[in-house]
């Protein structure tokens, strides 16, 4: 039973690694994002910028109070992401995406780093 749990944990870890967005490689995430906190939301993609040294995913997410938050998910460099099959069209405006990641530190900003991206139903978002 213990072995089964361990295997399940290991499988989950590998799955998360595979599904995770390529990490930020241009700079340390610590000064910009709080690794002790997690933020998650489902939003509609407004723009996917596939560039160097960082790609960015822009999403609008509706809040319970009727307001909208414009999230900015920092991703890896286009050069490295393209080696994993990513292209500027992997995510398109209008797509629904769920993210779980580290929130930005500066008050009043809605940046996200080191995020795991999925479709709203939890299915992996892959190139």
């Amino acid at each position, binding site marked *: 039973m213990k072995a089964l749990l361990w295997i399940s944990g290991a499988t989950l870890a590998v799955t998360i690694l595979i599904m995770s967005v390529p990490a930020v490689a241009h*700079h340390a995430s*610590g*000064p*910009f*994002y709080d690794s002790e906190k997690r933020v998650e939301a489902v939003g509609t993609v407004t723009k996917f910028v596939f560039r160097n040294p960082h790609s*960015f995913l822009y999403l609008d997410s509706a809040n319970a109070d009727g307001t909208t938050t414009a999230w900015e998910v*920092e991703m890896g460099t286009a*050069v490295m992401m393209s080696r994993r099959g990513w292209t500027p069209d992997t995510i398109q405006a209008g797509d629904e995406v769920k993210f779980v990641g580290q929130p930005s*530190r500066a008050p009043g900003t809605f940046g996200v780093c080191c995020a795991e991206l999925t479709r709203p139903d939890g299915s992996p978002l892959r190139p």
Partner: protein
Amino acid sequence: MSLAGGGVVRGSGRCAGLAVCVLFLALFSSDLVPVTTAQTNPDEVPRLTGVWDGGPRARRVNGPNMPWVPGENFPVLNERGLAYQATFDEAIAPKYDCVPSASPALQYDPYMMEVTQWPDRVLFRYEKDDQIRTVWLDGRETPTTEFTVQGFSTGHYEDGALLVETTNFVFDIAGFDDYNGIPSSQQKRVTERYWRDGDDLRMTLTVEDPMFLREPVSYTTRWLPGAEGYQLQAYNCDPFEAGHPRKYLVPKYR
């Protein structure tokens, strides 16, 4: 006999023709073909030409503890270095304005690199920041008044390795290590030794900078052969996206 004599005559004619050709080439081809003065025994020249993978497949990715590992090879800073490090502000790091990475960070960035060996020079082309470094093997002097981001490199082959020495860097507020806010000065001197270890390309890099470091420091790393046919991609650093994360910082200075 006549055949033999004729053969000698014809052979002499060919020798004379060959000598003229060699003389012609020696006199007039210097502008057409790179000239070498530093090339040594071919046995001492390792094959470095090719595309090399410096990504996560080859080595641990760079960060605050890599390649400068606390307790192992992390630099000992002098008072000036400590003072600069203490006042370092992440927002000022030149990379957020697309200023290219330089030695000793450039070689450890997790990207592809292409090496081309010529008789008189070795070209290092880096996918990161679209940088090209030329290592001159022809014995030329380092210019005394030219200072650049990548400095000026000279080198030679020795015992199956390429030895490179680079000086004439510009001051860089994060030029030793931008993850730890350690600057480098115009006195930075970087030496690199490249050699082949089976299929791998290996390098030991040493940095001296008496303006900030108490003693020289080194790291050793490796590259793996790049995928067959891989061509380096253009980096085309985007200044807006490079500086975009600045707004997520809690500012150290206002």
